[in-house]
């Protein structure tokens, strides 16, 4: 029996070999092309070593042999625009402004995680910790400019980043021009770093004390969830206001994108978010617990709904609180059961109970706030409404609601009486 030799793909090492030769040539060291090529090919094709690892191994070997520090050489390599970085395992040098800089607390493997931006784009950078004796990396600071040389691109979870490994160098440089790049439309957001010009549509309550704000922002093209971490120390955004959010980092979770906001500036530009507005004609078939008159935490920027004993999940027992009304419910149009969140002015309009009246009812009635819940239920549950709101995959934020008008609905359904009242009553 003759075994058929398995066909193997031979990895081409020409580029890598030339790169190594160039690196050493710049140090006035001439290496033999054939020898380097053979050694590279052996490591990659015979031993199956990752090509970038092989490149580093051979560079390191000859650097040691010739007693030179080769990574200092990287400065000569061309500076790349950040938006030209597309693939992983590329050795690159970039220059950019440090947009955010965070020391990593939980591990001693990583020194810092930063984001740098040039006029073409932005990219996250991981600074790996150095061992004693190795050249230390400088602590990068926000708003300063740096040249980051001889680092490797790395693709993880669809996010391209720069990895400052042993060979990498970081040097502070003078400020450069950074023209504001055009904001990306929400619909075009993928995984990565983007500038967005958006209006704040809605803020959610957050159950985490690490999150300062969470909610929805949107532009003409769509709506996206945003998170502002407390550690970012950002001023609070306000619903209805427009901002230019620079260098938001987007991530994908359950097939939905969300963005972590970084820095932003108010803008007076008018932004309308039309596409996600929706109108539903349906019946309010459910009013859930947590609806009615509620108390909110008064700690600056919190506003979470708190218990009757004024316990806030984040700020614990509060002496003070602020009353609010809302309905968390379901509007059912016969096809879809839409989860809806209805805020104070619309609850007042739908129920006819004003906040001041609700407070009076709660404070003078033995059932307290439950009495308000029952009254709102009796006035709104099982009724037809025309709801206008902003749609999000799993809920609709109601901006306005009107009782469905009979004449209007007759027009919509195009149904007409063909005779005066007919009696068809009777058990089937």
């Amino acid at each position, binding site marked *: 029996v003759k075994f058929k030799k398995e066909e193997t793909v031979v990895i081409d090492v020409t580029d890598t070999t030339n790169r190594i030769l160039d690196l050493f040539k710049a140090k006035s060291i001439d290496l033999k092309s054939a020898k380097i090529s053979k050694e590279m090919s052996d490591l990659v094709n015979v031993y199956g070593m990752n090509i970038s690892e092989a490149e580093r191994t051979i560079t390191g070997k000859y650097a040691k042999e010739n007693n030179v520090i080769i990574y200092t050489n990287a400065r000569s390599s061309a500076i790349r625009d950040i938006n030209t970085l597309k693939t992983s395992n590329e050795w690159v040098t970039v220059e950019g402004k440090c947009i955010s800089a965070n020391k990593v607390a939980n591990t001693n493997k990583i020194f810092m995680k930063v984001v740098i931006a040039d006029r073409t784009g932005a990219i996250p950078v991981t600074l790996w910790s150095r061992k004693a004796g190795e050249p230390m990396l400088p602590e990068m600071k926000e708003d300063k400019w740096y040249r980051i040389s001889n680092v490797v691109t790395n693709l993880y979870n669809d996010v391209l980043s720069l990895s400052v490994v042993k060979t990498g160098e970081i040097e502070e440089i003078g400020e450069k021009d950074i023209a504001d790049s055009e904001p990306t439309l929400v619909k075009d957001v993928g995984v990565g770093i983007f500038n967005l010009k958006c209006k704040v549509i809605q803020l959610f309550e957050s159950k985490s004390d690490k999150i300062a704000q969470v909610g929805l922002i949107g532009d003409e093209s769509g709506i996206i969830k945003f998170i502002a971490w407390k550690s970012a120390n950002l001023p609070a955004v306000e619903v209805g206001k427009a901002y230019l959010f620079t260098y938001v980092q987007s991530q994908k979770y359950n097939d939905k994108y969300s963005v972590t906001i970084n820095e932003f500036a108010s803008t007076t530009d008018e932004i309308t978010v039309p596409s996600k507005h929706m109108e539903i004609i349906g*019946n309010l*078939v*459910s009013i859930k617990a947590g609806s009615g008159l509620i108390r909110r935490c008064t700690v600056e920027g919190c506003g979470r709904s708190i218990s009757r004993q004024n316990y806030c999940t984040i700020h614990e027992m509060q002496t003070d609180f602020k009353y609010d009304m809302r309905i968390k419910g*379901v509007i*059912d*149009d*016969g*096809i*879809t*059961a839409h*989860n809806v969140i209805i805020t104070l002015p619309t609850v007042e309009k739908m129920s006819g109970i004003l906040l001041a009246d609700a407070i009076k009812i709660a404070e003078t009635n033995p059932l307290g706030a439950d009495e308000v819940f029952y009254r709102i*239920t*009796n006035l709104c*549950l*099982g*009724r*037809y409404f025309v709801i206008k709101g902003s749609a999000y995959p*799993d809920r609709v934020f109601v901006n306005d609601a009107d009782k*469905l008008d*009979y004449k209007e*609905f*007759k027009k919509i*359904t195009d*149904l*007409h*009486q*063909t*005779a*005066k*009242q*007919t*009696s*068809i*009553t*009777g*058990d*089937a």
Partner: protein
Amino acid sequence: MTEQKQEFIREAAKRIFAKEFNMSKFDIKPDDDDKAPTFVITPTGAMANRVLISGILTAKEKKTEPNVMYTGKLNDNTGNFSITASHFNPTAQQMMSMVKEVPSFVTVVGKPSIYKRDDGRIFTSIRVESIVVTDKTTRDLWILDTARATLDRIAIMKKNEDDWSKGVTEQYKPDLAGFETLVQNAVNTIVE
């Protein structure tokens, strides 16, 4: 296996006139799972795990033996729905107790089911999830809403193209023109 969705998606409440609902004879359980919902299939092809009904509560009774149980009749101008609220749902019982006057306009959201008695007769009923006193306008809107939904179902049944329509047609052999008359008669009962 298809993608498993973690989040619970609430079934929409179907709009069905009492006369049609009470002609229902079949139900299906698409999933084998014990907790999987059961759907009542109506003659015009509605597949209902939840219904929205509105009309006049014409009777209400409370039994206390062996357990507290409310029953009632809701008339929608085409027929009567039998509604029940058992001790398994205290909220529904509480809401039933709060409907003080009979007759009165009510709107109910509930779970439909069909029962076969020993003699072979089939009964339908609706287990109340919520019941609230509403008004004539709500009932009239519900008739329009239900008329439209029923006509939409009839239109699909008339085409008789998909497997669902074919299956329902085979089981019920429904008189679709008769259901169109039922819908028109229901609309005619609205006094403007």
